[in-house]
């Protein structure tokens, strides 16, 4: 069973979301997602300042198997992209919840965060997919 930390929120499309407590959220892909994708070779990160809608394709993660869109779980504005992924995209494989975060953004409505899945609900999504 893949790792699903309790203190994060999740989307059905396998992104995790972390509340940084300063009005910004950090987004990455889950352990289950990185395992399914296989070795990541390239990450196309969003530009800082870009406005994204909820569910909008915001970044692209390319693995030896496939290129996959990463969706912004909420509407907001991009604040930062993880620079280390340019040279070490495989950080997503080795550390999906820490070093392998993909982008940070300021949501226009922080309360929408509550509508995302908690760890238990996400685990169920993964199980149903299997």
């Amino acid at each position, binding site marked *: 069973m893949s790792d699903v930390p309790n203190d994060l929120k999740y989307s059905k499309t396998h992104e995790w979301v972390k509340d940084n407590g300063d009005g910004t959220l950090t987004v990455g892909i889950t352990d289950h997602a990185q395992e*399914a994708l296989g*070795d990541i*070779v*390239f990450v196309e990160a969003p530009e800082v300042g870009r406005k994204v809608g909820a569910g909008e394709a915001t970044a692209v993660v390319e693995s*030896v*198997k*496939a290129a*996959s869109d990463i969706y912004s779980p909420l509407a907001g504005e991009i604040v930062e992209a993880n620079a280390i992924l340019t040279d070490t995209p*495989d950080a997503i494989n080795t550390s999906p919840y820490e070093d392998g975060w993909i982008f940070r953004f300021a949501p226009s409505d922080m309360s929408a965060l509550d509508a995302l899945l908690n760890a238990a609900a996400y685990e169920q999504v993964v199980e149903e997919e299997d």
Partner: protein
Amino acid sequence: MLIHEQSRPGRRAGAQAPLTKPEIQDIPAGLRRRSRPALPEVSEMQAVRHYTRLSQRNFSIDTHFYPLGSCTMKYNPRACNSLAMLPGFLGRHPLAPDTHGQGVLACLHDLQEILKSVTGMHAVSLAPSAGAQGEFAGVAMIRAYHRSRGDHARTEILVPDAAHGTNPASAVMCGFKVREIPTGDDGDVDLAALEAAVGPQTAGIMLTNPSTVGVFDRNIQAIARTVHTAGGLLYYDGANLNAILGKVRPGDMGFDVIHMNLHKTFSTPHGGGGPGAGPVGVSPRLEPFLPVPLVARDGDAYRWLTESERPDSIGRLNAFGGNMGILLRAYVYARMLGREGMGRVAEFATLNANYLMARLKEAGFEAAYPQRRASHEFIVTLKPESRQFGVNAMDFAKRLLDYGYHAPTTYFPLLVPECLLIEPTETESKEDLDGFVEAMIAIRREARENPELVKGAPHTMPVRRLDDVRAARHLDLAWRPGASEDVNG
């Protein structure tokens, strides 16, 4: 070994060496190179052996079963080659006047008519020189159509997730936003999701039918109605045309534009990046926008139609008249098949795919859509094998090489995990199909008894499994002097 590594200074292929120094006085001194180019210096025998050896390392349709899903790797009849290489075709200068090329123009005009007839479209342009260019032309015509009506609000192209992988890229290239439409559990487009997605922003939908999950969408008429009612157009990706050739016509399904991959369905050689040919066919409302040139017939005379006769055309996609040699091969192929032969292509392509699927299912492999009849291709998911033995679809694919089979398409379409997309085509014999099934069974036995053997495959190829990650990040594409010493030293 690279041919550069066999190079010895001063070695020559005598028969090929020019006897006199080339005349370069008419090239301005500043543009002449001062050093010799780093070309390999080898004997003629060495060059012949080197390239013959390389060609023997190829997996090709002439040497191996090549069930690469969605690519239609079928036999390329030698007769098409011989006839397309008649000296009159080969020697024709592309700038020769129409009056000096009536024969080739007649063939191309005939090919336009044949493609119209077999797809049910109103008009055809042969100009695009690849499938991707055909897609670009098709979407560009959709854009031109909406603009010509002053309808600038249509900014979205709908693409089902079971469409061909290139479709979203073509839509984006033409400036559209892509909205993905999900596929239902039965493999058909999710109609409710489609209904919810269409609107005044819908420029069109790009569909592959049969889709990349290998089933024919039974709701195609409802899809056409929904998109047309919303004011959008229907684009048919011809990637899987082999399944319905001579049986069902995209024009009759309600499509407004189609591109055909002659290098797939019409059996011209492909692989290695080309050359291809991607003619486009259109319904009457898109006809003014067809890319040029077209071939027109006035009585017994044929002539090119270019920008001056076709002012609303989206324009030219290449110099001259497309990939002429490929178009001629496709023309010969179509004439050899005739109307009935085209239907036979679809019959045997689907028969072979369904036979192969039935045998693999019988052997215990899991079909992704077991309740559906396959079209000309089908999906096997190796999720059970991956879970039980830790051996995934890529491992199976690599091990198939050791057994003498080109791997099927892996990990595409993305909506089926651990998948192989298998397309045998109509030109394989029952014995060859049976051999492939035996290989799959043998590999699964190995996966159970000796998984490391499969995970380490291939074992018999000139190169072992490549490090995909490193290859993608550290490209090594160009030879430079001294590089071989680095490697050998």
